[in-house]
């Protein structure tokens, strides 16, 4: 029980604590803490140790991705002086040359610089693609689920059909045939093909919410359809959307890496995590392992962070869960 000072206003965080104090000291001025949904969610999230670990891992990578390119900008013309060139590039070393992640093989770039810049660009692409694809998926899913009928059939049939082919097939074909090259095009291709799953998810949530009493009440009160969808239904469907968006960032990180690894992604001279890896494959046989290992570790750390975080978010955002 909380330490209670005479006559001082007291705030407790659970109804049981409130009851206990009031039974013992009916004259105290005690209030039940009032928190909104987001504060409650944050409180639940904080208790989830793995989720906190995941979130800090992910945001560390985000900060590295933002600050890295500023501190150690990548310049594709900054070649190693000829007299310093060594076979296969230098292994990781701190002294006499500062290459904590070693050097690449032919042009002998510093892998550390490449990875820092790669994290930034890869995250930019994935987060951008997630924002766009989640928006599209939410709108399509919400309208499809709420309106129903013929429109719903057509939309969902199309989504089903597109999902029958592994998404990576479509992304690879689109990246190579419809032109790629700069990061913005790659991001758009990801976004325009990535909304399918979100739309299915949102539709299923909306379908179950549509029958809720508060929606009937809104309809009786003469609220417009659009307002019902965007002000009544979507805010209640927010938690699965947020969880799926966070996981989709991880998915896009891996997809970008793979697409660029195959040479169908961003222009090879710009460092994204996949581009760095695409050259590394041929250097492995010659003994240059560090070039392939460190960019991959960066990918795994980002994805792992997001996966842990997503699990915590799922529990934290569930309004029925206990505090």
């Amino acid at each position, binding site marked *: 029980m909380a330490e209670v000072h005479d006559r001082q206003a007291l705030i407790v965080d659970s109804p049981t604590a409130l009851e206990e104090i009031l039974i013992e000291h009916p004259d105290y001025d005690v209030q039940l803490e009032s928190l909104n949904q987001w504060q409650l969610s944050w409180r639940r999230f904080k208790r989830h140790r793995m989720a906190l670990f995941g979130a800090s891992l992910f945001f560390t990578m985000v900060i590295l991705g933002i600050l890295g390119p500023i501190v150690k900008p990548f310049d594709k013309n900054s070649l190693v002086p000829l007299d310093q060139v060594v076979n296969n590039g230098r292994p990781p070393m701190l002294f006499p040359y500062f290459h904590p992640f070693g050097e690449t093989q032919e042009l002998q770039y510093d892998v550390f610089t490449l990875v820092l810049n790669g994290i930034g660009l890869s995250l930019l692409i994935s987060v951008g693609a997630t924002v766009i694809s989640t928006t599209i998926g939410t709108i399509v899913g919400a309208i499809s689920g709420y309106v129903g009928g013929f429109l719903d059939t057509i939309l969902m*049939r199309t989504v089903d059909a597109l999902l029958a*082919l592994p998404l*990576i097939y479509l992304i*690879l*074909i689109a990246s190579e045939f419809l032109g790629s090259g700069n990061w913005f095009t790659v991001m758009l291709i990801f976004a325009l093909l990535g909304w399918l799953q979100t739309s299915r998810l949102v539709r299923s949530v909306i379908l179950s919410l549509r029958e809720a009493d508060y929606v009937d009440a809104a309809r009786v009160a003469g609220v417009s359809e659009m307002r019902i969808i965007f002000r009544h239904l979507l805010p209640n469907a927010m938690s699965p959307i947020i969880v799926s968006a966070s996981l989709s960032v991880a998915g896009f990180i891996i997809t970008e890496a793979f697409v660029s690894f195959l040479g169908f992604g961003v222009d090879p001279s710009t460092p994204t995590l996949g581009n760095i*890896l695409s050259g590394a494959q041929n250097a492995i046989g010659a003994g240059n392992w560090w070039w*392939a*290992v460190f960019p991959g570790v960066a990918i795994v750390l980002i994805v792992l962070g997001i996966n842990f975080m997503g699990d915590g978010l799922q529990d934290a955002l569930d309004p029925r869960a206990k505090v």
Partner: protein
Amino acid sequence: MTRYIIRRLIGAIPTLFVISVVIYGIVLLSPGGPTARFEQNPKITAAALEAFKHRWGLDQPWFVQYCRWLGVCNPDGQGLGVFISNHGLPNFLPGFLGGGDNGILHLDFGISSTNGTPVMDIIAERFPRTLVLAGTSLVLWMVLAFITGVTAAVKRYTKVDTTITVFNYVAYSFPTFWLGLLLIIIFSAQLGWFPAGGMWDSRNGQIFASQAWWDALFKDPLFTVGDLARHLALPVATLVAVSVAGDSRFIRAAMIDSLRQDFVRTARAKGVSERRVVFRHALRNALLPVVTNIGLELPFLFAGAIATETVFSWPGMGAQFITSIGQYDYPVVMGISVITAVIVVASNLLADIVYAIVDPRISYG
């Protein structure tokens, strides 16, 4: 039940139709098109280009081209006769029923624009190789997923469960192709235990499933199978490690759900042994959601196969797909996409039907 299956089969037709439109549409939208490879060549005259386009029907409007590619239209027909085959029956019917022989409906995917081989031949050669890789992985990964999933569920909240869960999380976060690279670095470049790529030993081995390979299999089965197994080891390990995580978590959840049911408590109260409770009572009921999940996961198997096949230069369908995209070989890309989509749709269908058969609580009219 039969009616349900027929209804589902008919329901798959629009899905496949939309996929075919999408695949065709992407290729249609791509700049350059099939003639891009010659247009820059100074030796190709405008007349030759026109003749080429006419020969392959590229001068037709896009819907005619699509209709012919699909196999509904007959390229020899005129006017409304395009829908009638040379045998005088609707063109979309199978060949032995008097239909045409062109288009994907008749398994004619055209010829590769890089080397002139019929696309169907390329797929027929590549598909068994992918099947060997994907099939081996699928079996191993299901076995491992069941062992780890059930163990984690039975020993819930113990150190074993935590270890499996953490392993699953980490493996789940690995990009398939990068795990492949790591395994090559460790087991091939550093330790030299396994070959870094390929499907057969280029000095002593034979091309897989060729006549010489079958001969070698009968003459020296140990070497031939061993050679295949050595080449399979790393790619299969990659695919299994990445894929086992998702299913293991799924099976754990299904098992925990099942162990919580009343019939499990009844069985325990009756004094049934713990082993029997887990395997006969709980696991059998946990199998239901798992069966469906396997069918839905097939796209991931194919996506994973693309990554592993490229990293390990496994000469299967995924590697061919990547090569063909790089070479702008439209017919092969479209052919492989269509075949994959059909397999995925069919397996989803199968999963639904199996679910309906296995689960007595569901009745389908």
